[in-house]
C-alpha cells in the first residue's frame, strides 16, 4: 500500500470515529474509555512483529518486542474484562409483574 491509500483509510476512519462516538450515550462514557483503551492495544501487532522477527535477528529488538507484547496484553485482557464487568452492571428497571407481559 502506498502512503496515499493509507492516508485515505486514516481520514475515512477519523470520519467514521467522529460519528460513531457522538452516538455513544453519555451514561457509557466510562466503558467507552475502557474499551477504546483495550482496542488501542492493537499496537500489539507491531510488538508481535518485533518479537517474532527479532528471534532470528536476536538482540535488543526482540526484547523490546516481547516487553511490548506483555504491556499490550495487560491492556487487552484488562481493558476488555473491565469493560465487560462494568457493562454487566447496567440494568434496566425491573418491570413489576403485570407491567409488561
Amino acid at each position: 500500500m502506498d502512503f496515499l491509500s493509507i492516508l485515505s483509510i486514516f481520514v475515512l476512519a477519523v470520519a467514521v470515529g467522529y460519528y460513531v462516538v457522538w452516538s455513544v450515550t453519555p451514561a457509557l462514557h466510562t466503558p467507552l474509555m475502557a474499551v477504546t483503551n483495550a482496542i488501542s492495544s492493537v499496537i500489539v501487532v507491531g510488538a508481535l512483529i518485533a518479537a517474532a522477527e527479532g528471534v532470528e535477528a536476536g538482540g535488543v529488538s526482540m526484547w523490546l518486542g516481547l516487553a511490548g507484547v506483555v504491556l499490550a496484553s495487560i491492556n487487552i485482557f484488562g481493558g476488555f474484562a473491565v469493560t465487560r464487568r462494568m457493562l454487566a452492571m447496567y440494568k434496566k428497571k425491573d418491570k413489576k409483574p403485570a407491567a409488561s407481559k
Partner: protein
Amino acid sequence: MEHAVAATPAWAVLAYLVAGVLFILSLRGLSSPESAQAGNRNGMIGMAIAVATTLALHPTGLPFIIGAIAIGGGIGWVIAQRIQMTAMPELVAGFHSLVGMAAVLVGCAAYLNPAAFGITDGAGSILAVSRVEMGLGVAIGAITFSGSIIAFLKLSGRMSGSPILLPGRHILNLGVLAGILVLTGVFALDATAAAGGGPLLWIILGLSFLIGVTLIIPIGGADMPVVISMLNSYSGWAAAAMGFTLQNSAMIITGALVGSSGAILSYIMCRAMNRSFISVIAGGFGAEADAGGPKTSGPAKSYKAGSADDAAFIMQNAESVIIVPGYGMAVSQAQHVLREMGDLLKKEGVSVKYAIHPVAGRMPGHMNVLLAEANVPYDEVFELEDINSEFGQCDVAFVIGANDVTNPLAKTDKTSPIYGMPILDVEKAKTVLFVKRSMGGVGYAGVDNPVFYADNTMMLLADAKKMVENIVKGLNGGGH
C-alpha cells in the same frame, strides 16, 4: 524478505480490515446499554483476529510470544477483576500509560530492526517517510506514557491533585514541543539516522517523556476528566502513527477511532465546564481561584443545618426527589447505601431520579458507572439537559458530594472562575438537602456556593456515607 510488509498476502490484509471493522462495531455497540456487551465482544473478536493474523504471518519464537501474552494477559485479567469501580479513573490512566509505552517500544524496535518491518529501501536504509512516522509515533507514545503516569499518580492520590506550577512553564513546554518537531524533521533528513545510527531518536524520546510530565503537573484535580480524555486520544494517535509505519489497516482504523473518541470526550468535558481546551491545558485552575473570586470575608454567613432524621422526614413526605451525586459520593463509597435510600423512598411512593452533570467525578461517565454498580437502573439516571427543567417542580434536591456543578454563581457572577458553566438548577427545588463534609471546603474551583445559605437549603454536614446510612435508619425507624 526485505519488503516483508509489501509482501503481506491478500488474506492477511483482508483479515486486518475485518478486525478494524469489528473495532468500529464495538464502539457502535455502546450507543445503548442493551447492545454494549455485544459491542465489547466484537472488540475481543477483532483483537483475536489481529493477533492470530500477525502470528500466522510471523510464526517464529512462538513459545516466547505466547509466554509474554500469558504473563500480560494474566496480570490484566486479575487487575480487571479486583479493581474497585471508584478507582476506575486511575485504572484507565494506568492503562493509557501502557499503550503509550508499548508504542514507544514498537517504535524503537522498528528503528533497530527496520528490515523486519519492511520499512527499508533497496540499500537497507530506513525510508524517510517511515522515519517521520516513527519519530511522531515514539514522541506521542512517550508523551502518553509519562503524562498518564502523572495523571495516574494524581488520581490515585499518590500525588497531590493541586496544580504544580513551574515558572515559565508555557515557554518551556512550547520550546520542548518545537524541539521535538524540529528534531523529527532532522531525523527524517539525516543520513546517519537512515542507516539506523545516531542519537536523534533517543533525544526525541527523552524530550517527549519530559514534556509529558510538564504538561500534566500544572493541571488540577477538577480538570482531570479533560486530561484523561485527552490522553485517551493521544494513545489512539500513537497507535495510528505506528499503523502508518507498519502499513496496517487495523492499527490505523483503531488509532483513528480512539483518537477521535478521546478528542470528542475532551470537547464534551470542556463544554460542560465552559472552558476552552487551551485554558485547561495551560493548567493552574483551582490554584489562583482564591485570589480571583469574591472574598468571603466579614461575618460568617448563616446557614441551616439539619440532622439525618430531619432529612428522612422531609424526603418521606415529598412526592419527588432528585439525587445529585458528585465526586464526594465516590470518595466515601456512598453509592450502595444511596441506592438503599432511594429504594426505601420509592417504597413510600416517592418518585426518585438521579441527575448527573457531565463533569461530576474524575472521568466522563464516572457517576453512571458507580450508580450502575449499586444496582440503580440506568433509566432512572438522567443527563443534565434531560432533567434540568424538572428541578422547578420537584420537592427535594438531594445533593451528595457535588458542589461546583450546582453553583448558581455560574449563571450570574461574571467574575467567578466558573462563570458560564452549565449547572444543575438544584436551587429551584422546594427544598435542597446538601450533604457536605463541613462548611470549610468550597469545591475545587475554590468558589463559595450561595445555595448553602439559601432559605430553602438544609445542610447535612457529615461524611456522605455516614449521613446516608443515618437517613436510611431514619426512614426505617419512621415506618412504625
